[in-house]
């Protein structure tokens, strides 16, 4: 079974992921370790989803005993929602010259020795 939008995430399984750390190459991608998604016996291991890796990053960054199944599932759902929004933004055509509407402006401060 591959990981999908609706795949539930169990705390014990996820604990293995976090315990194993976040080095995808070492843990999941190459060896089929804890981060890898479930596959059939004759299939090569697939890497974990980006959402799962991001969740692992969150849990690593904000450790605590509040990470029960429900909490993990809810944050994973939020991450997937953010990814959907990200895809929506990426689908919008932007040219290289389309600059962001930032609030930064270079202040017009008086130059030393210049007119005050």
């Amino acid at each position, binding site marked *: 079974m591959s990981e999908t939008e609706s795949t539930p995430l169990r705390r014990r399984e996820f604990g293995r992921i976090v315990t194993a750390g976040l080095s995808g190459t070492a843990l999941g991608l190459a060896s089929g370790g804890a981060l890898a998604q479930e596959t059939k016996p004759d299939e090569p291991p697939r890497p974990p989803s980006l959402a799962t890796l*991001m969740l692992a*990053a*969150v849990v690593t*960054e*904000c450790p*605590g005993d*509040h990470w029960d199944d429900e*909490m993990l599932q*809810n*944050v994973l759902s*939020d*991450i997937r*929602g*953010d990814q959907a*929004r*990200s895809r*929506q*933004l*990426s689908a*919008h055509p*932007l040219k290289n010259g*389309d*600059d*962001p*509407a*930032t*609030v930064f402006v270079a202040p017009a401060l008086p130059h030393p020795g210049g007119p005050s």
Partner: protein
Amino acid sequence: MIPVEWAFATIRELGQRLRARETTSLALTEFFLERLERIGTQHNAVVTLTRDLALRQARQADAELSTGRDRGPLHGIPYGAKDLLAVTGYPTTWGAAPFREQTFDADAAVITRLRDAGAVLVAKLAMIELAGGFGYRQANSSFTGPALCAWDKTRWAGGSSSGSGIAVGAGLVPFAVGSETSGSILNPAAANGISGFRPTYGRVPRTGAMALSWTLDKLGPMCRTADDCGLVLQAIAGPDEVDFTTIPESYRYEPGTAELSSIRIGVIEGCVANVQPEVKSAFEVAIEDLKQFAKVETAALPDLPYGAVVGTIINGEMAAAFEEFIRSGKVLELTAPEDRWGGYSVLVMPAKDYVNALRIRRQIQVAIDKLLVDYPILIAPTMATVAGPIDRDFREWSRGFGSSPLGTAGNAAGLPGISVSMGPGADGLPTALQLVAGARQENLLLQIAAEYQRRTDWHRQHPAV
């Protein structure tokens, strides 16, 4: 003894009575303090009564008026402030349990400006915890309890400036100050049948206000009428030495200067496609009222990802604003369960998403500016439904309904907007009309809204409280 109907008087009306010596600021202040205490608490509208400060300010206002010093239209008028505005000597809770003891050693800029205008602060008003940035989905999302609509305590008052909406709607203060990142002034104004005004981004300084999203947050008045909104806006607007995003020019409220018969009002195409039938009916009547003094035509809002842009910007900025709060685990003390986890995902949002949202935001600004050349005012219903039930998930009761993206687009582009009541909808609850204008076009917007209110009396209707 203040007549109970004065609870629903406008700022101008109360000011006239003050100057005619029919009452005093102290009497008005005690009148509204009593209503806040008796009625406000029933609606979960109040966080803190600022009684001592209010009585002191009211006595000063009366003393000044008696010696001929008149600070202007707000002199001696009581008001309430959303509890994300710092007031020295009182807690500033941001509506959130982890901050219920928080204090600041300086007043917010708008509090200082209203004091200088002679207004009397009577209460700090309830709000959705942390202005709703953590993704609340039901009304019980403030440590002061669910905000109960001024018209019906089984309905939600809207958010995040919930207490400000209730307090004006129920006649507990003549006006209030709210804040809007995306919808937080206009939506509670709609739910409570009042006039709520969102100024141009940068028009009002946010110094001393809680930051949720630096590039989207605005402070604005919530009043009985559009005219009152103009009076309050003039007092709080203008450049600020600390808030570098403020517009450098000062603002002067000048109602009634434009020739309205030549103004083309654009009705957002498809804006009633998914609204309650009663909202649609009220909106159609409102269009006919507007046609009495302006041209009203259909206008197509450019097809751009408004929601994704605003959502991404809020997430990116709140992640920075509240990173330590989330990391420390304090977030787990919030009231709404969904708010306790809603801050985590944003910590790992890719930077390119935030930047792309800002790039599209620029396109939104340009596209809507073009539309505003043809239609200086754009309108749509503020909300698709009347106030929803207090005890159900928003996603349940709003299923199948949807408002137009005009509000989200206006916030993305930093444009001013106002919500005014357009009459009763389902169950006799208020429906509301939203009007949006170009950046810095507050006077035109207020003039149109005031003219609409001059020809209708929906803003005069109020709940029996």
